[in-house]
């Protein structure tokens, strides 16, 4: 992917609680993600993976605790650019691929938005389809637009919430290759996945969540395989 124009960023989750009514979606989750780590979160549906990622993206506020982004020296890094890719594409069907990227580039105040849009479209292989409405794209192509959107602001941190949903094997291979390049460029990556795949193989660390709490972590000795497959995906 693009040459690194970002600074390595780590994430610290401190005692994160998330309550909906009386129910805990997340319970005292504390994690330290060092810059450049590629972390995969595994767990059943409802275990809190999506909630944790959306809190990290600051789309959802935690009921208690805080999320902090830190540079390599451990100092707080306010305004670190973050990229978020969910299973919803988060792009407009009624606009073309190019219009979508231009829109978000201009909103984020990116310099030379047209040039950046063009370069990203090239990287995700959508240059020929730049003027087609996203509505006409296949699932795999939509994910590419989504990833291009997430990369617009040269993010130091990328958050993927079940990104492989609905992708065919070629799509998954392409996604895995993209994530591998992001990881090798030194970006910090958090992803939530179901089960083992080409994508989970990229992880440098795996964490299992159950009922909103961290129950296993490769950092504390559990094996990647057991975290990804324990109790069924």
């Amino acid at each position, binding site marked *: 992917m693009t040459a690194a124009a970002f600074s390595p960023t780590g994430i610290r989750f401190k005692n994160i609680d998330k309550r*909906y*009514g*009386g*129910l805990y979606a997340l319970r005292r989750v504390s994690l330290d993600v060092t810059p450049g780590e590629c972390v995969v979160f595994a767990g059943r549906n*409802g275990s809190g993976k999506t909630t944790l990622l959306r809190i990290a993206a600051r789309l959802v506020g935690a009921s208690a605790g805080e999320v902090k982004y830190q540079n390599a020296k451990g100092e707080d890094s306010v305004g670190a650019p973050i990229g978020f890719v969910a299973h919803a594409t988060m792009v407009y069907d009624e606009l073309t691929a190019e219009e979508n990227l231009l829109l978000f580039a201009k909103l984020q105040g990116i310099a030379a938005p047209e040039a950046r849009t063009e370069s990203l479209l090239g990287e995700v292989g959508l240059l020929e389809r730049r003027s087609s409405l996203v509505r006409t794209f296949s699932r795999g192509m939509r994910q590419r637009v989504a990833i291009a959107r997430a990369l617009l602001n040269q993010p130091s941190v990328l958050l993927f919430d079940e990104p492989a949903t609905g992708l065919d094997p070629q799509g998954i291979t392409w996604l895995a290759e993209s994530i591998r390049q992001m990881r090798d460029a030194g970006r910090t990556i958090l992803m939530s996945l179901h089960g083992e795949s080409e994508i989970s193989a990229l992880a440098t660390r795996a964490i299992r969540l159950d*009922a909103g709490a961290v129950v296993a972590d490769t950092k504390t000795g559990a094996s990647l395989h057991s975290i990804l497959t324990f109790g069924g995906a």
Partner: protein
Amino acid sequence: MVKSIIKAVILFALIAATAYIAFNYAPIEKSMGVIQKIFYIHIACAFSAFVAFGTCFYANVRYVFTRQAKADWLGVAAAEVGLMFILVVLITGPIWAHPVWGIWWTWDARLTLTFVLGLLYVSYLLLRSMIEEPDKRALFSALFGIFAFLDVPLVYFSIRWWRTQHPQPVILGGAGSGLEPRMRVAYLLMWGALTGLLILLMNARYKLEALRASVEELRREAEVQ
């Protein structure tokens, strides 16, 4: 439990005493006759309704900034009880108007305002029934409640100006000015009794909502397991 029964009995006695005084102690009004006595309930209920409305607004703002469930319970309690008082105002108005003016309804400023206020309450309560998730329900109804509260003075002024340009017979107009001392006693007693009723009802509704919230919580927890 015993305390609330005692409170209810006291209140009942107070209201009964007030009714007696309104009918037998306060004199009969010269021009309108006996029907004027409905004024005591009509105005006191209107006052209570506005107190409830103010309480609802306070609860709404508190919820948005503190997200405490208690504030949400207070909001719905105030809205429901307030709506009840508004209904009484809207019923007693026409009951007065018919023998005096020969018509059931007139779009006079105060009554129209009360009607619109009632509609806003109803919308608030309907909105709550259409959102299942408790936190969302509390937040969005609170936000609507805040907008509705800001609207009320605007509704009042617009209706009043409009009515000065297109005058209508006024319901219970002028009855508020120059109250004879015995009438004043009856009015103050009624006002006190109904304010007491307002507080009692809101308290009961508040407790019911608190109970409902914990039942809902338990049910959701059971579902997850």
